[in-house]
Each structure stands twice: as C-alpha cells, then as structure tokens.
C-alpha cells in the first residue's frame, strides 16, 4: 500500500510516483463473476436454502433433514467453505478505490479495511455448524437441532459488517469532493438502501415465525436478495472504476516523455 507523500500534490517526479501499482487488479476483479456463480450454485445446492428451513421444525425432523440430504449439505457447505472468502479481494479493491477519493484522512479506508474480514469470518462459523451437524447425523436430535439453530442464527445475523461497509462506503462517496468523483452519488444512496434492507435480519431472534424468523420475508428473502443485488451492482460499478483508473494511468504514461523519465 502506498504511503503518505505519494499523493498527487507537487514535487519533482510526483506524476510518476502518483501512478499507483494496479497490475493484477483486473484479475482480482474478474474472480467476482466466477465466485458469484459458485456462490449461487452452492446456494441452490443446499436444500435448506431452496425453500428455507422452518425454525419451527421439531428436533426429530431436523435430524431427519440432515440424514436425508447428507451429500447435498456436505458438498454445498464445502463449496461455501472454499470460496466464501472470495468476497475479501473484492472489498479490498473497493478500499483501493476509497483511497483515491479526495479525502483529507484515511479514516474511511481504515474503517473499510476493518470490516472486510469479519463478514466472511461469521459466515464460516455458520458454515462449520452446518457441516458439524451433518458429520454425525445419528447424533441425539436435540444436539443436531442446537447446531442447526446456531448455524441459522449466525448465518442470518452476520449483517453488522455488511451494514458497516455499506454505510462507510456511502459516507466516503459523499465526502469525495472532486469534479470527477470515483463513484457517482447514486452509488452512495444505493449503499444506504442496502444497509437499511439488512437491518431487520439483525432481529432474527425475536420470533420463530413471521417476517423476522430466519425463513421470513425480511430476515431471509430481503436480506439475501439485498446482498446479491449489492454484489452485482458493486461488481459493475467497481469494474468501471478500475478500468477508468487503468485508462487514466495509461494516458499519463503515454504523456510527455520527460514525465516518465523524471
């Protein structure tokens, strides 16, 4: 990561120093569509997601669910375990774009950096609980239900850092005062909207039935659709910012020769 002084302001050779190293960003960016296809497939493969498992299922039925769907549960959760963290490089690319914004301090990029790993880490806890429940399906059904509850509650409630990163990104965009901002204002509004859509899932523990339950309209459908839409929209917006930066850098490099040799 670049250090202070490598900014666009003044000094001999500063134009050259201002060229941030961007090699490989495109590779990281294009891992997103591949990861999204894997996430989507794993999501559809897990029988508990296709029509979300009811929290009111008695323990015996929960145990039977694991006994009857062993292969699909294991394979979908192993896929999620392998590729869940693919979100991290994408979030880091967003951090790199925040650092190009016209801010006086790195507060927003620091805050975003603090968020990136925690969402996937909470997801991995849910993932391990699902795999654990499937490991010994003959276990006492009460214990299988406990692991299942732990997995579902953790999966549903993992929103704090997703809300955090959307709000931080929105604030960073609002404070990006320059004639050609890195992201358009609507991206900030969009992120606030997504953050709002994720809030109800935080209250998943309130009820076993209804819109707030883990299979409910707000806690399951609204939250997961919001995350999916965020991934698609931010993937496109981020891609445009990354390619624009590359074009700008190429232009600078192809500019007056003395600048390159400075």
């Amino acid at each position, binding site marked *: 990561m670049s250090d202070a002084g490598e900014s*666009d302001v003044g000094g001999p050779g500063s134009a050259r120093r201002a060229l941030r190293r961007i090699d490989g960003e495109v590779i990281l960016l294009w891992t997103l569509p591949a990861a999204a296809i894997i996430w989507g497939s794993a999501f559809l493969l897990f029988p508990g997601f296709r029509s979300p498992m009811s929290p009111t299922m008695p323990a015996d039925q929960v145990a039977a669910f694991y006994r009857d769907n062993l292969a699909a549960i294991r394979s979908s959760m192993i896929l999620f375990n392998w590729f869940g963290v693919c979100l991290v490089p994408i979030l880091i690319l967003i951090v790199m774009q925040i650092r190009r914004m016209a*801010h006086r301090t790195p*507060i927003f990029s620091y*805050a975003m950096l603090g*968020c990136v790993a925690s969402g996937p880490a909470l997801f991995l806890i849910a993932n391990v609980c699902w795999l654990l429940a499937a490991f010994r399906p003959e276990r006492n059904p009460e214990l299988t*239900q406990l692991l299942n509850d732990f997995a579902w509650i953790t999966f549903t409630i993992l929103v704090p850092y997703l809300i955090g990163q959307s709000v931080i990104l929105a604030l960073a965009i609002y404070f990006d005062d320059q004639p050609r901002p890195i992201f358009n204002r609507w991206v900030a509004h969009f992120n606030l909207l997504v953050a709002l859509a994720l*809030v109800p899932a*935080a209250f998943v523990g309130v009820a076993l039935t209804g819109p707030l339950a883990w299979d409910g309209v707000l806690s399951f459908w609204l939250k997961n659709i919001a995350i999916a839409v965020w991934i698609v929209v931010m993937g496109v917006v981020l891609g445009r910012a990354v390619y624009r930066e590359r074009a700008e850098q190429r232009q600078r490099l192809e500019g007056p020769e003395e600048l390159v040799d400075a």
Partner: protein
Amino acid sequence: MSAVITPPASSATPPTGPPHHRIAWHLWRSPKRELWLAWAILVAFYNLFFPVFFIVAQVQPPPQPTWDLATQVHWFHERQLGIPIGFGIIFAIGGMNAINNALIAYSMRRMSVTRAFGYSYLIIYSLSAIPGLYLLCIALIVGTLRPDRDPEAVGWLYDFAFLSFDGTMGVFLIGSLIWMVAILIDKNRVFPKWFGYLNLCNALTEVVVAPCWIFRRGVLAWNGQIAWWLDMVVFGVYQVTFIVMLFQMIRREDFGTGPLPDLARKKAQKNGEA
C-alpha cells in the same frame, strides 16, 4: 497508508449562529469533518452499546456461574424478548465499531511511529469483536430461541456466552499494549504519556480476568469482584478518557507530520497571523 490530500472546497472558518448549526458544519463542512464524524459515531456507538447490555438485554452485570440448570433456564426465560431485541440493536450498529477502530488507528498514524502500529491495532480490534462480542450475543439468542430446549444444552450456551465474553483476552491485551507503546515512543505529542500508562491498566485487566476459565465462584469467577467489577471500572475510566483524548487530538490536528500543536499555541498563532 495514504490519504489523497486534497483540500475540500468548503471554507475553513466555522459559521456563527446557534450551536446545532455549528455542530452540523463541523460534521459536514469543516476540513476536519472526517475526524469529527468518526468521533461522533464513536460517542453515539458507546451511548447505545452500554444501555443495550445493561437495560434492554439485561445480561450485564453477568449472572452467577454457580447457578443450577433450572435457574439458568429461568434466567433465559426472563429475557425472552430483551436479548433478541437488545442484541438486534447491537448487530445493526455493530459495524460502526470499525469507524471507532479506524479513528484510534489514525491517532497512531499521526504519531512519529511506524504505520505498523496503526494497522496492527486496526486488525486486532476488528478481529476482537467476533470472539469477544458476537459469539456471546449469538449464544444467548440461541439460548432464548426455544424455551423447551434440553436444560443441559441451555447450560452449555450459558457457559459459552459468558466465557467467550469475559475470557476473550489476548486481542484486547495486545491491542492496548500496541497503543501504549506507540504513545510512549511518539515524539509528536499526540497524547500525554500518562494516557499510555492508562492503556497498560486496561491491558492488565485482561490478565486478571484469565482465572474466570478456572474458578466458578469467588472474586476471580466471571462475575467476580476482580474479574468483572474491577475490570469494568477500569474499562469505564479508560473509555471515557480515550473519548476525551481523541476529541483533544482532533481539535489540535493540523494535518502536518510534525509535533501536534497545543491548543493555546494554535490560538496564539492565529492571533499573530491576524
């Protein structure tokens, strides 16, 4: 770590008028708006955080580790709604904690020390929330989810919750020590040296809490006079102090790289320029 130093278009002079106009200007227009906003979020976060734990969820001060299973089940039953609503608020606002950590990391960035201090603090404290806060909340929510759950399983959730909360130590211990060392070797006078030693006090609370993994009763148990009450008092003092310290740092901030000017000297300089 870099910030693109581009002065915002707004004027650097605060407007005159009613206090809420001036506060709004500092948060939205002032050259220090990023820092003031982060500080305001930090204050708002802690003002919600403690009432939620003590009043809404009523899970602090912690219950007795020695209770029998029937009493533990009863304890969950009494908080059937308080825990999921209270912790719902925690999960909704929890991401704001990243901004608090970012502001503290920024304080180290302003010091005459390597950027490694700020980064280390940021990563350690970002990690700390999972074992030190969210696991407690998830375990207690799962505990309230089914009143008819086997008491043995409820008892396991009870231990898991309070031990992961009290017994997550290293992240806070090493995090505080990193801030302490940065303050003590800093030549930019960002914070007074005594505040560095206050960080040591906070770090030591994480040492004396370790016996909560061993003792079920007495002063060292998870709800004991040392492991909980003394630590909470120290943390309370530490927290109020660092909020004030960060406030003073932002007031003195000149966006330079040398020693942070004193407030009085800054004023004198301004008068001299005028």
